[in-house]
C-alpha cells in the first residue's frame, strides 16, 4: 500500500501513462510537482514561455497521435498557456495541461499569482478539473488522458492547488492508465441511407478533413474514391489523405484552393464530408456552398452533424469504420451509375483550373523555395521504414503556400494551426514533433511576423538539439494582412510593414543555432541541401521581398465560386465566376 504525495502520484501516473517527455516552466505553485519530476525517468523540456510549452505538447501530440503533456505554474503561467489550449481545442488535439494553483485554503482570496484557471479553461478545453485531494488524482489523471484521447480528441486541463501536491495519501492500487474509449459503431440504417444516396449520385465528391486523417481513414477513403469514382478535396488538416499527385485529388478546398477544387464543389450533386466541420474558411458563404448537392456527413462528434448544414444522411462514427461500412453497403447494392462523364469533367477542370503557382522552379521565389526545400527534405527524409518528413507551419501567406504546394505522401504530415490560426505555432510545434518522432526530419515554414511570436523557443530547440529546420520567409511585413489590405481595403497598407527589421541569421546564431542566408549563396539549392543534412536545428533565411499575393483567394464572406484568380500573365487580377 503506497503512501505518496500528490506530486509523486501525478508523476507515477504520467510514467504509467507512457509519457516520455513533457514541456513546461516551473514556478512557486508547481514546485512540488517539479521536485517529484526530478526523480522521474520522464524527460523535462524547459520551454522559454508557457505558450511555447503548450505548442511543444501540441506538436508532439499532432505528430504521434497520442496525448502529450505540458506544465505551467499558477497565474501568469496558466494564462500564458491559454492560447495553445484554445488552439488545441479548435484543431482537436489531445493534450493534457497540468497547472499549479495557490493552496486550496487561499483559493478565492486574490492570493499572489492566483487566477481562476478553471474558469478561464472552461470555454477552451474539452474538459477541466480542479483537484481537491491527492486521492482524487488517482481518478482525475487517467480520466484526463481518457477524455483527451477519446472520440474527437481535445485538450484537458487539471488545476493542481499546491497543498494537493504536497499532501500525502495511502492507497491500495494504481488505476489503469487512461485510454481512448472505443468509437461508436456506425449505425447500420444511417450507412444504408448514405449508400443509397451515394449509389444514385451522378456527380459525388469526397471531402476529407482532419478527422479522416486522425482516424487513419485515408486507405478506406482512397479505396472508396477509386472504386466508386469520387474525386477528392481536402481541408487543410485533411491534406495528405490522398497523395498530392493522385489523379482523383483536387487538393484543398475553400479560401486558398485551386479554382478547380472550388469548381468541382460547385458542380457536385452529392458531398460526402468526412471528419470535417464545414468551417467558414472551407465553405465560403455557406448558403452558396455546393448549391446543388445533397450532404452525407460523417463525424465522430455527433454535434457536428447538422451544426452548419442539415445533412441528408449522417453517420456519427470513426471515419475509417464509417467508410469501410459504406463501401460494403455499396457492394451489396451492386449496380450503380456510370460516372465516366463526371470523371472526364474533373480531368478537364483540373487541367484548365489547376494551381499554377508562379516561380515554382525559381528557388529564390516564395513558391520555388518551398519546392526546393521539399526536394532537399525528401532526399534526407525518406527512410527505409517509410517514415517521412513532417512540416510545421506558422500562420500567413507562407502557410497557405505550403498547403498549396508541399507534396504530402500521407495524412498527418502537415502540422498547422487551422482553426485558431495562431501565429507563433510553428517553431514550438516543430520542436515537439521532432522530440516525439526523432526519426523524422521536421521542417518549420515560418514568416518573420510569426517567428517573432515565439522566437524565444530558438533556445529550447538548441538546448534539446531538436532536428528542426526553420525555413524563414523573410518579407519584412505581415504578409497576409498586407495582402488583405491591398485587396480589400483599397490598397491602404497600414500597420503591416516592419520598418525595423531584424537580422534573423544573426539572431539564430545568438541563440547558438546554425543559420544560412540563401541570399548569400550562389546556389540556394546546394545551401539548402547542406542545411538539411546537418544534424540538429538550423535556420534558413529566404528573402521574399516582392512576393505576389497568395492566389487564388475567396474574399472573406464571399462564395467559394467568387475567387480572385491570377490572369495568365500573373500581373493583373480578375474576379472569375466559375460558371462565367
Amino acid at each position, binding site marked *: 500500500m503506497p503512501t505518496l504525495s500528490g506530486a509523486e502520484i501525478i508523476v507515477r501516473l504520467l510514467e504509467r501513462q507512457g509519457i516520455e517527455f513533457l514541456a513546461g516552466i516551473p514556478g512557486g505553485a508547481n514546485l512540488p510537482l517539479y521536485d517529484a519530476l526530478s526523480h522521474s525517468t520522464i524527460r523535462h523540456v524547459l520551454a522559454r514561455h508557457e505558450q511555447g510549452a503548450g505548442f511543444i505538447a501540441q506538436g508532439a501530440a499532432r505528430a504521434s497521435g497520442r496525448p502529450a503533456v505540458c506544465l505551467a505554474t499558477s497565474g501568469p503561467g496558466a494564462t500564458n498557456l491559454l492560447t495553445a489550449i484554445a488552439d488545441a481545442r479548435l484543431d482537436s488535439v489531445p493534450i493534457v495541461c497540468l497547472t499549479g494553483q495557490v493552496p486550496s485554503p487561499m483559493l478565492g482570496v486574490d492570493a499572489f499569482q492566483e487566477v481562476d484557471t478553471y*474558469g478561464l479553461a*472552461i*470555454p477552451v478545453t474539452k*474538459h477541466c478539473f*480542479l483537484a481537491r485531494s491527492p486521492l482524487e488524482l488517482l481518478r482525475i489523471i487517467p480520466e484526463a488522458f481518457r*477524455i483527451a484521447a477519446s472520440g474527437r480528441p481535445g485538450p484537458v486541463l487539471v488545476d493542481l492547488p499546491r497543498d494537493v501536491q504536497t499532501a500525502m495519501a495511502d492507497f491500495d492500487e494504481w488505476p489503469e492508465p487512461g485510454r481512448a474509449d472505443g468509437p461508436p459503431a456506425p449505425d447500420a440504417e444511417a450507412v444504408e441511407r448514405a449508400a443509397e444516396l451515394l449509389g444514385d449520385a451522378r456527380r459525388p465528391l469526397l471531402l476529407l478533413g482532419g478527422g479522416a486523417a486522425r482516424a487513419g481513414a485515408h486507405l478506406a477513403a482512397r479505396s472508396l474514391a477509386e472504386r466508386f469514382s469520387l474525386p477528392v478535396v481536402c481541408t487543410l488538416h485533411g491534406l495528405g489523405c490522398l497523395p498530392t499527385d493522385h489523379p482523383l485529388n483536387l487538393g484543398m478546398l475553400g479560401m486558398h484552393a485551386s479554382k478547380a477544387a472550388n469548381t468541382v464543389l460547385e458542380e457536385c450533386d452529392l458531398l460526402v464530408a468526412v471528419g470535417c466541420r464545414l468551417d467558414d474558411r472551407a465553405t465560403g458563404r455557406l448558403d452558396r456552398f455546393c448549391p446543388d448537392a445533397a450532404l452525407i456527413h460523417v463525424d465522430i*462528434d*455527433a454535434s457536428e452533424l*447538422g451544426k452548419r448544414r442539415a445533412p441528408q444522411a449522417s453517420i456519427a462514427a470513426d471515419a475509417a469504420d464509417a467508410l469501410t461500412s459504406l463501401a460494403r453497403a455499396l457492394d451489396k447494392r451492386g449496380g450503380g451509375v456510370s460516372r465516366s462523364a463526371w470523371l472526364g469533367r474533373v480531368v478537364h477542370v483540373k487541367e484548365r483550373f489547376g494551381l499554377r503557382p508562379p516561380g515554382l522552379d525559381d528557388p529564390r521565389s516564395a513558391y520555388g523555395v518551398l519546392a526546393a526545400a521539399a526536394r532537399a527534405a525528401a532526399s534526407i527524409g525518406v527512410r527505409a521504414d517509410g517514415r517521412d518528413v513532417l512540416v510545421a507551419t506558422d500562420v500567413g501567406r507562407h502557410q497557405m503556400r505550403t498547403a498549396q504546394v508541399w507534396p504530402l505522401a500521407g495524412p498527418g504530415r502537415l502540422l498547422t494551426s487551422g482553426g485558431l490560426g495562431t501565429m507563433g505555432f510553428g517553431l514550438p510545434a516543430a520542436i515537439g514533433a521532432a522530440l516525439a518522432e526523432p526519426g523524422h526530419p521536421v521542417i518549420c515554414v515560418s514568416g518573420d511576423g510569426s517567428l517573432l511570436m515565439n522566437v524565444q523557443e530558438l533556445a529550447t530547440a538548441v538546448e534539446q538539439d531538436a532536428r528542426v529546420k526553420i525555413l524563414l520567409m523573410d518579407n519584412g511585413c505581415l504578409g497576409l494582412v498586407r495582402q488583405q489590405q491591398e485587396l480589400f481595403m483599397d490598397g491602404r497598407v497600414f500597420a503591416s510593414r516592419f520598418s525595423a527589421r531584424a537580422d534573423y541569421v544573426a539572431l539564430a546564431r545568438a541563440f547558438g543555432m546554425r543559420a544560412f542566408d540563401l541570399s548569400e549563396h550562389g546556389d540556394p539549392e546546394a545551401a539548402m541541401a547542406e542545411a538539411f543534412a546537418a544534424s540538429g536545428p538550423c535556420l534558413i533565411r529566404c528573402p521574399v521581398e516582392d512576393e505576389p499575393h497568395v492566389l487564388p483567394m475567396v474574399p472573406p464572406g464571399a462564395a467559394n465560386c467568387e475567387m480572385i484568380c491570377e490572369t495568365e500573365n500573373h500581373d493583373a487580377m480578375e474576379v472569375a465566376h466559375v460558371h462565367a
Partner: protein
Amino acid sequence: MSMPDRNAPAALTGTVLELTVNNHPGVMSHICGLFARRAFNVEGVACLPLPGGEDPSGGLSRVWLLLREDERLGQIVSQVEKLHDVRETRVLAQGHPVFAALAGHLR
C-alpha cells in the same frame, strides 16, 4: 387543453432541458458557459442535489433549464451532451412544474 395562466411569465411555457450532472462546484459554470458561448438564452434555472449525494467523491444533481424553443435546440442539446459532467439529458417539451413553483416566489 387548459387556458394559459395570464399571470404566469410567458417563458414558463417553454421547453425544459432536464440534466443529471456530477455535483461539484464547477458544474454550473460548464453548463451556463456553454449557453452563453453559443448565444442561446436560458430563461430559468433550477438545481438540486439528488438524494444520496453525501458520498465524498461527490454525488449527482438534477438541473432543469427552461429554454425558448428555437431551431437551434437540437444543436444545443447535442453540445450539452458532450459535457463530461452531464450524465443524462432529457428534453421535456411540455415544460416542468418546478418552474411554476418557483414563479410563486416572484409575486
